[in-house]
């Protein structure tokens, strides 16, 4: 776990330093006075991050120093559940988030929230209490929608599909 973590952290900061900063942090052609350029700070932080990642990686190779780099075995968090099952559950959750974002423009914020809540209640296993779950899934977003739109004047997206249907 320690080695993988060290590699990922080094790679992440390395990617920012070598790929993202040259593309997305352009240096202005003229910098007044002695003001440091805009890429100075992200570069500094990325370099420090890379060094820390390499340090974690190096410390993970020796059993004596591993305890400093990896004091709590993050692998133990997983328990006995097979990794594919965990990945599948995680994948479903991320898919639900992505579908929610996509559905807002189509179905509107309220309906998309109700569907996301139903999906999450299924994924957490609470859907066993179907009636309570269903009432919560419909009533909570509806109440929040009414509160925010009337009391705070928030204008939630209504959704193109519902607009086309004249709802």
């Amino acid at each position, binding site marked *: 776990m320690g080695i993988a*973590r060290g590699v990922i952290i080094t790679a992440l900061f390395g990617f920012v330093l070598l790929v993202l900063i040259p593309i997305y942090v352009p240096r202005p052609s003229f910098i007044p006075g*002695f*003001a440091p350029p805009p890429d100075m700070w992200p570069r500094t932080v990325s370099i420090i991050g890379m060094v820390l990642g390499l340090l974690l990686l190096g410390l993970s190779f020796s059993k004596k120093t591993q305890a400093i780099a990896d004091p709590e075995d993050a692998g133990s968090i997983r328990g006995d559940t097979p990794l594919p099952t965990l990945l599948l559950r*995680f994948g479903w959750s991320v898919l639900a988030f992505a579908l929610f974002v996509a559905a807002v423009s189509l179905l509107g914020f309220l309906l998309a929230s109700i569907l996301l809540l139903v999906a999450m209640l299924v994924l957490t296993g*609470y859907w066993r209490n179907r009636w309570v*779950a269903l009432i919560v899934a419909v009533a909570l977003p509806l109440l929040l929608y009414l509160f925010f739109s009337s009391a705070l004047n928030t204008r939630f997206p209504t959704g193109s599909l519902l607009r086309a249907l004249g709802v």
Partner: protein
Amino acid sequence: MLNDLLIAFQAVATFENFLIMAAGIWGGVIIGAIPGMTGTMAVTLALPFTFYMQPIPSILLLVALYKGSTYGGSVSAILIKTPGTASAACTTLDGYPLARQGKAGKALNMALYSSCTGDFISNISLIFIAAPLALLALRIGPPEYFMLMVFALTTVAGVSGRSLLLGLVSACLGLLLATVGEDMYGSFRFDLTVDMQGGLAVAPVLIGLFAIPELLKIVVFRNTEAQKPMQLGDNKVTRAELRRSLKSMLKGSMIGVVMGAIPGIGPSAAAFSSYGEAQRSSKHRENFGKGEVEGIAASESANNGCCGSTMIPLLALGVPGDVITGVMLGAFMIHGMTPGPMLFENNLHEVYMLFIGMLFSSILLFGAGKATMRFFSHISRIPPGLMAPIVLILCLFGIFSISNSMYDVIVLLAMGVFGFFMFLFAIPAAPFLIAFILGPMLEENLRRALAISRGDPSILVSSPITWLFASLAVFVIVITIRQQLKKAKA
């Protein structure tokens, strides 16, 4: 001065004023306790209503909302591991583990006692040391600010989690993410989309990092993690616990007072610094992060300790220390009062009325906290499988209502996924958050200092104050490494 304070006392002690302050405190506690609803939002939303009120009651309402929401943030931090406000993020470290042990009531009571103590001390400090402390804070220049924040970050990285290295990695990730958007000279950085030119707001990052990973943990590990519904359970804070925590509470209050008085530092950094100091000096430091009441006392006394002292630079110098005092500055000006040295010349009676009102509001905070605690304790009885999706929906609506933008909602969800990965890799979230909040100020002060010195980095260690903070940062690193080496050997 005493005579002026007595006259102000008579003017403030009316039923109408008490009602306004009580409403502000109670409303603030409720708003602060709802994830996604921040104290800033509460104060901002109340501002239009103050147009129709007398000057002092209107400021007292805003102050009460601020205080209430600062305490309210701890309610959800303890019960559902979702800090309602950024300053309560530190309270989750010990509050939530205590709630999981069936001692949510004890955690909430300790948070309340500490908040009221911090708040009261803060108000006293506002009355007696406003001007001198504000003058001292004004002398702090960019290099001193930079080193102060480096020290704060190092402390946070050292005390969060069990590895200093992982804490520092977390801080670097937070600092990097804080660079997204427009910098101080108008250059855009990491603007992968047009929305990203505006940067990432604190609220979706904070809520996403703390609330969404909890939901994902329940979804992903549901068969492996015991899901006991939390009870209010053990309610009482024993005398021994109170005695044990008193030192941290008083120290935290003073840290809050000092850090609150320095513009821009604010309650989040104060809470984390106080927590770090309490852990360092405690006899029970091994219990920190596992449900130690002293940890709650330290963070809550510090964050509420800022409430009064953030008014010091506002009143004495006209400089708002954070967004909330910025809104208050607007409220003062609406009523024809200009905060700054002249305020003490032209509106001395009003200033004293405000001081007295703030002292009253500390007492009201205690009453409102006790009453609201019972109400919010019902949250702990809801099973996590139901509560976590409910929190998600509350966050989505709350975040959308702040900016009316789906971009912040996407940031919220993306940060949730990112926070879950951080959890998997045992990278603590607290240094990330504090680095994200302090990041822009840290960079701004570094760049200003370098511009002043014409690129010479020795300016960062050019004054006694910078040396002091640099030495403290090195001291924290050495102590933390020594402790970790000791543990590794054991």
